[in-house]
């Protein structure tokens, strides 16, 4: 089976300063990968580089053995929640329906079957009763679930989520994790940018610890070791020690 994702030696810089350097990564299908690391480690940058939202200085990225262009319709991306204008005049149902747009192509409108499918995805995240609410009326956790429902509606094989658990309630977090694990069990691949280390072991099959460079990539048990973590979080720890926290 081809790799879901094969990243080779990519470097990205902003205004001459490098954000990530020489990252290598191969991910088999049917895994949940967590990308972790301290603030400013380049987690979101790596994700954006993979999705060609920013240009890379060097290196190569393969998705399912091909280019991003060839595999766009197999990818779903859930941006950070603060990316959105929550006052936008759109109902929950219509937001999920956007997930069917990529497969529709230009000029075509969602049909009845697309609407039924979007509603089904909304049911999966337990929000069918909110279908006709404006998206801003939902809680943070519910909003995140709406965008997961939209990703599900895309019928993708590879999912990218950027900080999906920031500022949401425990119930929503639990539900999202369960849905991601269901996807994995169906053979789909999930990549999550994450910054809370406490649950990393339970949530992810693979972890990539990043601090501009790749610090460690492997099973959670290999990555979540004190001597490995120290390498990535050294600067933050030094600050804590200086502040007298021991």
């Amino acid at each position, binding site marked *: 089976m081809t790799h879901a994702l094969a990243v080779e030696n990519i470097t990205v810089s902003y205004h001459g300063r490098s954000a990530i350097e020489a990252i290598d990564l191969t991910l088999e299908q049917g895994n949940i990968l967590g990308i972790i690391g301290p603030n400013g480690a380049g987690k979101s940058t790596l994700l954006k580089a993979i999705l060609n939202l920013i240009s890379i200085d060097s290196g190569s990225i393969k998705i399912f053995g091909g280019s991003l*262009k060839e595999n*766009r319709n197999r*990818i779903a991306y859930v941006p950070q929640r603060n*990316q959105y204008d929550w006052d936008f*005049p759109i*109902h929950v149902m219509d937001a999920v329906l956007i997930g069917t747009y*990529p497969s*529709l192509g*230009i000029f075509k409108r969602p049909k009845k079957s697309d609407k039924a499918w979007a509603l089904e995805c909304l049911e999966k995240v337990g929000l069918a009763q909110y279908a006709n609410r404006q998206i801003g009326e939902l809680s943070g956790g519910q909003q995140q679930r709406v965008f997961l429902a939209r990703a599900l509606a895309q019928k993708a094989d590879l999912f990218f989520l950027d900080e999906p658990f920031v500022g949401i309630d425990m119930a929503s977090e639990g539900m999202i994790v369960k849905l991601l694990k269901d996807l994995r069990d169906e053979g789909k691949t999930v990549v999550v940018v994450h910054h809370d280390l406490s649950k990393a072991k339970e949530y992810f099959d693979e972890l990539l610890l990043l601090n501009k460079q790749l610090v460690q990539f492997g099973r959670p048990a290999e990555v979540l070791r004190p001597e490995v973590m120290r390498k990535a979080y050294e600067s933050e720890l030094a600050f804590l020690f200086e502040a007298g926290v021991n």
Partner: protein
Amino acid sequence: MAFIEGIIQYDFLQKALLTSVMVGIICGAIGCFIILRGMALMGDAISHAVLPGVAISYALGINFFFGAVFTGVLTAMAIGFVSQNSRIKQDTSIGIMFTAAFAMGVILITVLESSTDLYHILFGNVLAVRPSDMWITLAIGLVVLGSIYLFYKELLVTSFDSVMASVYGLPVRLIHYFLMALLTMVTVASLQTVGIVLVVAMLITPAATAYLLTDRLSTMVFLASAIGAVSAVIGLYFSYTYNLASGATIVLAATALFIIAFVFSPKHGLLWKKISSKKKQTELANL
């Protein structure tokens, strides 16, 4: 009423009414996307940037539509180029480019000594609408409304979530410039009715009013068009009856409708918000 009699009687008033209603409709429709993308200032910029194009068109003896669209889109591209290739922020770039284009237009009109009446271009003169202007407005209206209908899905997703749109392969930047081209055409269509200076009001005010009245983009587009059309009729009535500049009366009619919605909108109005927060307070007090 003298206004209604006038409409039945005078050909020029019929043309004025038809043209300004069409302008109200298309400005309202395209305006929804402008305000949701946070491009109100861009609307102002593009409308001013058509001036040099209009001047050159008159000098060359071609229809001002072509020159206007050319300089409008050119300015939009210059704005994008400067903000993307330097540390200058978008709103600053807009401020530099559109004033430059506008200033150029003022000089061109003076130098070319064209027969164009600068005052009419700036503030509109709907009662002097020629048949050719009316047909241009109609043609532009059809192009703009047709484009919104055909590309509704793409306009919605790039306005709401441009990142997702580019991940699934939509040409986000091209769609932006396409919208700028539509915006330029709408400005040209509005030249006679409200004039360059006040076009931005017709783009923004009816759309903003509709935004306060609904939570659905498709409804918002229809509402904004209706509000634009109603503003045009009310404005034209006052313009004709009291012999006032049509652009100004139409814009003030739109503003009046906005104020009504701002206070009385069922969900987002000032009054309703006051009442619902009072209700909550008494509920809490009764606990």
